[in-house]
């Protein structure tokens, strides 16, 4: 009997030791002296290795109609076009941009076989502990999708959504938005993919789906035919939802990319890319707090 007690104690001790407190933050010593291509800290010298998702989908890669779907090399779609603009600004030619693919989570914990990764990563302090983010390249707002015959299709205020059964895709900031801003009474359903969320919408298990604005137009046009964008939500000023390029923790390349990004923002390139590839809130109602 005694050794059993002992082994239980040992396992407990193991767990206790394993769960050490960890509030240490690693400091990055990113002091990029020069941003010439030759001096950059690159994954493969002489080329810019960029990672995106598998598949990479519109309007981020490809057009909302589905042209150049999953073809980041095309330069079609907001994120694809942004990468080529950044590359040019940094002194790379288009041929020197090499694309690789990673899963969304895999890019965080797995080996960093890229210079940076972009697939609509929202910048958050928690994520920033494990990886580094560039300055934001896009400010995101949330939108509500529903079938026109649903009761919430005419919603114009947050109060209209109090009893709505809403769904989101996991890993998006839409869940935080619903729970903190809309605060509906029923539990928010969380799905692995938009395909699952669509099934739930079809089955009337949820009344509406909350996603970011740019994705909303793609979903209503391509993924869930017959659905409409009911409303766009004004982003709360104190907690903006912004996308950043993802770097390995402490990668000094980030400073040079940020410099190029700042130039693109200043000369209006970033804004025109947004106009070109991302449909704005358009005719949908804008609901604010």
């Amino acid at each position: 009997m005694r050794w059993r007690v002992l082994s239980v104690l040992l396992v407990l001790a193991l767990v206790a030791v394993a769960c050490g407190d960890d509030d240490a933050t690693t400091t990055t010593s990113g002091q990029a002296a020069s941003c010439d291509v030759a001096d950059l800290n690159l994954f493969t010298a002489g080329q810019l290795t960029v990672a995106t998702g598998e598949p990479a989908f519109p309007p981020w890669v490809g057009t909302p109609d589905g042209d150049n779907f999953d073809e980041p090399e095309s330069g079609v779609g907001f994120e694809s076009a942004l990468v080529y603009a950044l590359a040019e600004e940094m002194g790379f030619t288009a041929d020197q941009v090499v694309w690789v693919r990673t899963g969304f989570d895999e890019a965080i914990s797995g080996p960093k076989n890229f210079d940076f990764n972009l697939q609509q990563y929202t910048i958050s302090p928690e994520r920033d502990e494990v990886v580094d983010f560039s300055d934001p390249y896009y400010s995101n707002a949330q939108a509500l999708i529903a079938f026109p015959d649903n009761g919430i299709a005419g919603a114009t205020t947050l109060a209209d959504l109090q009893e709505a059964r809403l769904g989101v895709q996991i890993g998006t900031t839409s869940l935080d938005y619903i729970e903190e801003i809309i605060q509906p009474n029923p539990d928010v359903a969380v799905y692995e993919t938009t395909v699952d969320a669509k099934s739930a919408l079809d089955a009337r298990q949820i009344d509406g789906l909350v996603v970011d604005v740019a994705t909303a137009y793609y979903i209503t046009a391509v993924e869930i035919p017959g659905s409409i964008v009911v409303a766009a939500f004004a982003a709360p000023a104190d907690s903006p939802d912004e996308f950043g390029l993802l770097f390995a923790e402490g990668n000094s390349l980030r400073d040079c990319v940020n410099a190029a990004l700042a130039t693109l923002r200043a000369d209006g390139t970033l804004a025109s890319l947004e106009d070109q590839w991302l449909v704005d809130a358009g005719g949908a109602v804008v609901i604010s707090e």
Partner: protein
Amino acid sequence: MLWPRRSPRRSEEGGRAALIAAVSTVVVFGLLIALVLNSAYWPAVQRQFFNWRHFRASFPLVLDGFWLDVKMFIVAEVLILVIGLAVAMARSLRGPAFTPLRLLMIGYIDLARGMPLLLLILIMGFGIPALRLPGVPNSALIWGVAALVFSYAAYTAEVYRAGIDSVPESQRMSARSIGLTQAQGLWHVVVPQAVRNVIPALLNGFVSLQKDVALVFVLGVREGLREADIYNARTFNYTSYIAAAVLFLLVSVPVARFTDWYADRQRRRMQAMST
């Protein structure tokens, strides 16, 4: 008592054996712990998997979802035990008149056991409500539990059937000879003995169910695994999964130990009876 009584001399030997076991356990586990903690990868593992701060932050959320798992597996287990027994009894009825019933039961068991549980959950959880049949509930939770019951009742029916087959044929005969119908004989004479024989196997199924309820997370249901998943997606830290694992273990390990203890006791009783 977990062990039979021993004579004083043997208990002394037992004490020595326990000491050796304790020392070797300490040495082996100590070395393993030292090896792991001194590994170059340990700080990263600790940060990502055993982060106390993230554990504290995610545990209440995961616990909240885990209650739903507990409710689901309790409700499902009751239904599984009842339906499984009914199916096993229907399958065990003899005579040509019962052939269609037997075939139906065999068909159900083959179907339910042959399909991946996840597939069943997706078909029943998303598929059936999508038909929008009048009067049929569309709740993901209800259909998720229904899929679990559908699958597990088939396995459980087979466990019961093994129990029913283990009761000597003479018991059935005796029941018939005192004027009970076939169904009455099964219910009053065979089933009580059969169930006693298969309790460890039923408990084993229960342990398995306790974990499989988490699969309804694919339907968007906010149970424990899903809450852990949400936390992980938010923070990129895996400690919330460890929190969920701890909760599942807290429930399943005691049942597993109890099953061992019960099976052990049953075996000793059988031995006592045969000597």
